[in-house]
């Protein structure tokens, strides 16, 4: 399968969700897969089906005591007040039956994409259910129970002892969990672009969070102003990400592709459009070929406009991963099927129309502030990478 792309998925991965009107809704996975299918983008790409991660996998980055609590919670056991201390059973992370197994399966998916690419069985691989970047060593946070990307990176480090992994996170929320888990590790470069923590959850991700001890310089944070639009987003990405990765010389790039920086997303205040979600994967793909023989692993992440944004953004992601053209028009059968359930009008095109997202009045001011942030990063943090 060398030189080929792999789509890792199993319907069991659609079990990870919190039910009711909770914003983290796995229907977005189903919608994305059916959109890819309907556009013919999955022909010749049978799903690679992952097994759930083992407890030993989870324990590479999570405390055993925490894994036990998640297992208890999934069986309906455990003291609710105590579980809350572990972030379980809160408004953000409600407990649901078999939560441990559902999330361990998501971790398994990310482990498989990472191994397929690192072992050369696939050139690039995607698992859209992954990207639970807020999960902390002993705490669920921001809809994330287990940190799949961190587990995969930790396992790759064990299986390939001298490996260097670049983690590139363009979710609108700071990739805090992954950052903290490798904060003093110079072999894992974390790069996160997000809406400034002054305004958005989780609150971290300032430029000065730049790693510690041996890892000093290996955590890169690019906080963006609220209401940042495509031009500034792309300018900042281009100014920082390629240069940081070139300085680091990774053996593999793992990208987290949360699509909640889109203007329509209800949880955040950045104003990107589908242009960003075509640009970022295309460029990560190019950089992977430039620096690490194309070894690129992509996962999903946040994205809470499940009707208009997530299916299109992750279809564009799969098109980049699998070297296919993104068709222009949305397929009629898909629109018909999902239009019945959707509370909002579904877009007819796979890309956004620029005239629907004109520059806002403060755009110049926002661009200037973002440029200053980039300058600070380029001056203070990037030179620390060797």
């Amino acid at each position, binding site marked *: 399968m060398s030189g080929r792309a792999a789509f890792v998925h199993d319907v069991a991965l659609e079990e990870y969700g919190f039910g009711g009107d909770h914003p983290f809704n796995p229907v977005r996975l189903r919608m994305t897969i059916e959109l890819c299918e309907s556009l013919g983008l999955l022909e010749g790409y049978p799903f690679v089906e992952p097994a759930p991660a083992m407890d030993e996998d989870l324990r590479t980055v999570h405390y055993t005591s925490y894994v036990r609590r998640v297992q208890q919670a999934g069986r309906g056991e455990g003291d609710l007040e105590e579980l809350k201390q572990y972030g379980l059973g809160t*408004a953000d992370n409600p407990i649901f039956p078999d939560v441990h197994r559902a999330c361990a399966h998501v971790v398994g998916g990310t482990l498989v994409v990472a191994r397929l690419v690192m072992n050369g069985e696939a050139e690039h691989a995607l698992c859209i259910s992954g990207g639970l970047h807020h999960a902390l060593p002993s705490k669920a946070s921001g809809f994330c129970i287990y940190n799949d990307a961190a587990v995969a990176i930790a396992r790759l480090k064990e299986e390939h002892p001298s490996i260097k992994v670049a983690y590139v996170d363009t979710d609108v929320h700071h990739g805090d969990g992954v950052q903290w888990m490798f904060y003093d590790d110079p072999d894992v470069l974390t790069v996160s672009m997000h809406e400034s923590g002054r305004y958005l*959850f*989780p609150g971290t991700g300032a430029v000065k969070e730049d790693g510690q001890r041996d890892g000093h310089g290996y955590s890169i944070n690019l906080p963006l102003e609220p209401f940042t639009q495509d031009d500034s987003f792309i300018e900042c990405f281009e100014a920082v990400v390629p240069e940081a990765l070139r300085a680091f010389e990774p053996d593999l790039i793992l990208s987290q592709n949360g699509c909640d920086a889109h*203007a329509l997303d209800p949880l955040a205040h950045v104003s990107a459009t589908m242009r960003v979600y075509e640009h970022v994967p295309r460029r990560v793909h190019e950089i992977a070929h430039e620096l690490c023989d194309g070894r690129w692993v992509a996962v999903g992440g946040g994205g809470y406009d499940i009707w208009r944004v997530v299916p299109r953004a992750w279809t564009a992601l799969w098109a980049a991963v699998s070297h296919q053209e993104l068709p222009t028009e949305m397929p009629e059968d898909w629109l018909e099927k999902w239009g019945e359930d959707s509370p909002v009008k579904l877009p007819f095109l796979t890309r956004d129309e620029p005239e*629907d997202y*004109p520059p806002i009045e403060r755009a110049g001011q926002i661009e200037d502030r973002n440029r200053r942030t980039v300058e600070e990063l380029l001056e203070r943090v990037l030179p620390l990478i060797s």
Partner: protein
Amino acid sequence: MLLVRDSMTQEVVTVAPETTAVEALALCRGNRIRHLPVLQGGRLVGVISDRDLRAATPALGDPARAEALDLIRVADEMARDVATARPEDPIEDAAMAMYERKIGCLPVVDGEDLVGIVTSSDVLRALVRLVGAHKPGSRLEVALPGRSGSLAEVTGIIRDEGVDIVSVLASSEYEDEGGERVAVLRVGTIDPKDVVDSLSAAGYRILWPPPGSGTGPA
């Protein structure tokens, strides 16, 4: 965390009244500090800053400088009327004292004993801890109407939504007579929508997050 003792430096570098300017400046440089309490017989008798000493000596490059640095004694230039803080004082009292007197530090005394020093950068650090993000949370700005109990009502509504409050800052000043003041809260959720909806339903004006974000193309 919000008392002087939590923010002060305990290992205090001190000098005597007869210490020379050159020695005192070397202590400032070596320890990267700007203020030195002056002790005589274990008792606090003054404070000297590197700025006081520099102001009293000829400029760098002036041939008279070296001699002057040797001749000037701390006692010649120190402030004798020293404002102090006690370890149990609230940090905001220390901040107020430094701000009003336009000074950069307060020696901390317990009875007669010098037990620490608190500087303007210690106060800033305490402020950073107060407003900083040490637990995951989202920013929420609420306009509080000028009636008693509104902050309590706001925090009660947040509690009823099952959401933790990570930190609260509320101004004590009102925008105008009978007007509003702003409370900035960090709430322990990635999705403050339900909290915002409940606060809005109870009549509170929400300044952040912005209304209608994510509702449709511009």
